[in-house]
């Protein structure tokens, strides 16, 4: 009898909101129950791919689609999915002593061979612990028995998972398309050969990108800073190199992605066109960590689009990357896609457009089906501060682009800013207000017949968070009180019935800064906060700052130890990891930012950031520059 025929399961689903979050059954979901469980257990791997947030968030993420498809290609690997249960389901599971189970077959997490956590933001850490605990897996790596699954983590924030180090058996630094199948193959070997956990971890330490936290010991100075990070196992290299897929065209793309039945954050087919970023904005971790910039071939993308349209039935298509207007073939690509999308009422959407490359003819064509708003991300309100951040957008660029947009019928404008950037003054915050007012005045000055009726401006501000592997990793973060003052200044200055202003919560921004540049001592803090009830911290309504404040008392100096400015000679908890950019390069950029000097993009010339050693993509010898 399958679980859907059991009254107890029906009762469980009936008692929660959006039960389809937990049932699976989506188009292209894989169920290998008929064959897989008949294979010799030593010749198969049962893998639980987990995203530590609700279904709707996890299923909107392309990483889950990619890894699910890649792992399931192998008949002897069965990859299932698991997401964080919402509060109502979590309560029912605990009340009824039920384990957290996978979507495809309802298998408890503890019964898998390997559990993989896809991590995209630090505020998901408590959900990781909750999922492991609900799944029946001991939280600490050191307490897991030979029968427990191997727990591995990966994703964009794998470049510093030190605060979670005691909870993961292994971490994958970099891209998973090639590495994860290699790890799964090693797991099959482990089972066949009867290796212990330790022997297995030693064997995968040799795979490029794999980091075994327990193979390294961290010593601290009296003041709490890192003194030394050293390997304590023969198999542990002194430095862990990230895994890079040099030719993005060789990275597998799911042509039959899962199509969820319930509404997600983003309900659309997606194509990743670029990976990495050539701009070098100094706050951006993803841009640096995913270098070199690599493009996908235009013809392959057009072919992929055809498959996705046929196989999904979605009404929206998104082109994804960190900066889509940097895609060298964008115009050609869009012109090839429009005849495929328009007749089928499919909306082509392009997020993260960079202002200075904005092409209106192109945008008008895209907007013919359904017009979205115009989005700019100046980040800073004055040119001085934009130069500090190396965000090369001028006021003239913005005004000109806005003017063209308004004359072409755009009437919704969205602006993103970051408060608390290094060297920011009140004048810089005032600069945001001045800029917004100038854009509104531009609209007002246009003849009424030449533009739409009503302008709506959304200003969205977040707080700067210093991140590892960026030039700003030495920067302090401003205090919560300072954040509140700036936000008040902005809210007051933006008072206009046409402007809506949205901002992030301060305390969670502070916590993110703590965790982002954190060390292993924070594991105890995370554990305590979780025990006290912290869960789904990325959600405003669930975030409780007091629990974290209490837990941070475990660390002398608390949050401020982590948000402080860092001296140039400080050893960082992530110094033993290498993502391509060198500390020397980043330090040079940090010093330039202090002088308000900009740096060229990789398109202009190579800044020798360190990634040129990979010889891939846009880097000299990488091929993209030559073929572009």
């Amino acid at each position, binding site marked *: 009898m*399958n679980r*859907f*025929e*059991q*009254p*107890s*399961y*029906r*009762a469980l*689903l*009936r*008692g929660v909101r*959006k*039960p*389809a979050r937990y*049932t*699976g*059954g*989506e*188009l*292209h*979901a894989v169920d290998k129950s008929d064959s897989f469980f008949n294979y010799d257990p030593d010749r198969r791997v049962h893998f639980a791919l987990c995203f530590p947030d609700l279904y709707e968030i996890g299923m909107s993420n392309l990483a889950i689609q990619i890894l699910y498809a890649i792992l399931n290609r192998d008949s002897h690997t069965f990859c299932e999915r698991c997401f964080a249960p919402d509060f109502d389901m979590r309560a029912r599971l605990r009340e009824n002593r039920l384990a957290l189970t996978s979507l495809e077959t309802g298998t408890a997490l503890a019964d898998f061979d390997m559990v993989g956590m896809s991590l995209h933001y630090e505020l998901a850490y408590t959900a990781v612990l909750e999922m492991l605990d609900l799944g029946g897996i001991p939280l600490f790596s050191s307490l897991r028995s030979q029968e427990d699954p191997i727990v591995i983590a990966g994703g964009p924030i794998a470049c510093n998972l030190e605060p979670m180090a005691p909870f993961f058996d292994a971490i994958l630094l970099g891209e998973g398309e090639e590495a994860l199948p290699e790890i799964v193959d090693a797991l099959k070997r482990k089972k066949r050969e009867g290796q212990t956990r330790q022997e297995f971890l030693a064997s995968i330490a040799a795979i490029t990108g794999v980091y075994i936290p327990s193979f390294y010991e961290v010593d601290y100075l009296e003041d709490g800073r890192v003194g030394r990070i050293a390997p304590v196992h023969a198999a542990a290299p002194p430095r862990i190199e990230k895994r890079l897929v040099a030719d993005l065209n060789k990275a597998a793309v799911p042509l039959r992605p899962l*199509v969820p*039945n*319930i*509404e997600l954050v983003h309900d659309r087919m997606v194509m990743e066109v670029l990976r990495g970023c050539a701009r070098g904005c100094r706050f951006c971790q993803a841009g640096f960590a995913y270098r070199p910039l690599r493009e996908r071939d235009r013809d392959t993308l057009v072919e992929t689009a055809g498959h996705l349209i*046929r*196989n*999904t*039935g*979605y*009404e929206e298509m998104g082109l994804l990357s960190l900066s889509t207007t940097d895609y060298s073939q964008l115009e050609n690509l869009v012109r090839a896609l429009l005849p495929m999308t328009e007749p*089928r*009422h499919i909306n082509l959407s392009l997020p993260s457009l960079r202002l200075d490359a904005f092409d209106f003819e192109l945008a008008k064509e895209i907007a013919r089906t*359904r017009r979205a708003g115009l989005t700019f991300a100046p980040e800073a309100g004055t040119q001085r501060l934009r130069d500090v951040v190396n965000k090369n957008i001028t006021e003239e660029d913005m005004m000109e682009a806005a003017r063209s947009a308004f004359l072409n019928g755009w009437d919704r404008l969205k602006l993103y800013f970051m408060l608390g950037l290094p060297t920011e003054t009140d004048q810089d915050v005032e600069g945001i207000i001045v800029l917004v007012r100038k854009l509104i005045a531009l609209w007002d000055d246009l003849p009424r017949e030449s533009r739409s009726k009503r302008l709506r401006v959304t200003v969205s501000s977040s707080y700067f968070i210093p991140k590892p592997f960026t030039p700003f990793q030495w920067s302090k973060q401003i205090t919560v009180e300072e954040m509140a003052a700036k936000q008040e200044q902005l809210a007051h200055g933006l008072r206009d019935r046409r402007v809506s202003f949205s901002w992030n919560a301060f305390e969670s921004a502070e916590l993110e800064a703590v965790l982002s540049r954190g060390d292993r001592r924070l594991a105890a803090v995370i554990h305590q906060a979780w025990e006290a009830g912290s869960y789904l911290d990325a959600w405003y309504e669930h975030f409780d700052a007091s629990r974290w404040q209490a837990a941070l008392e475990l660390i002398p100096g608390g949050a401020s130890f982590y948000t402080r400015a860092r001296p140039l000679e400080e050893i960082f908890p992530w110094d033993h990891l290498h993502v391509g950019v060198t500390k020397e390069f980043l330090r040079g950029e940090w010093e330039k930012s202090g002088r308000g000097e900009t740096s060229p993009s990789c398109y202009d010339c190579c800044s020798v950031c360190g990634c040129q050693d990979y010889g891939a993509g846009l880097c000299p010898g990488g091929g993209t520059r030559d073929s572009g």
Partner: protein
Amino acid sequence: MTADKERIILFYERRGAAVWLAHLDMMRLFERSLARADWPLSWTEDAFNPRPELVFALPVGLGIETRRDPLEVTLALDGQALDPDRALLCLNHSFPAGVRVVDWKEGKAGSQSLMARVTAARYRLEAEGIGAAFRQTFAGGPVEVVRQQKKKRTVVDLAPRILSFEEDGEDRVSFTAGAGSSGHLRLDLLLDALVLHGGLNRNAAQGARLVRLFVFLDGEPA
């Protein structure tokens, strides 16, 4: 079928994981499945949010299985012919797990919406002790339950909405109930009534299997 616009009524069943989708999810599911199967759908004229023309006879509640619920699809054939058997083969191949079209018939041109033609529906309920609970609840006289909506609280008498019922053993009941724009019986209220007035165990109610067997259109089983 050849004409510029044609209507076809599909009868669909849903089982398994698909039972746990809300009505809006089902609309989306059908829109996407029809798109994948390349059906020549007619789209509404709305400038801002054009949608394919689909009309469900009845909304399908969360947790309710169907066996042949009607759904009317309007096609824009533009003079082309549609081979229904072939089109249905493609459609059934493109659904996610648990959904299948089991039958079809030509739709009526013009006027009355499919929804307006629904008068009643036939159901089957399975739960421990449901036979006795049903008998006791609908022995005669009013059967009142409270319907709590966000800001409104109404008392509904379910008795006139149960048109007939038969017990099939202790744990299974089949019944015909009012459905559609007036006199519609909500199954969640029915379960509340069976617990309140019929002594049905609450856990049994929560774990009940609810199946809509077919719908009455214009007074006849469709």
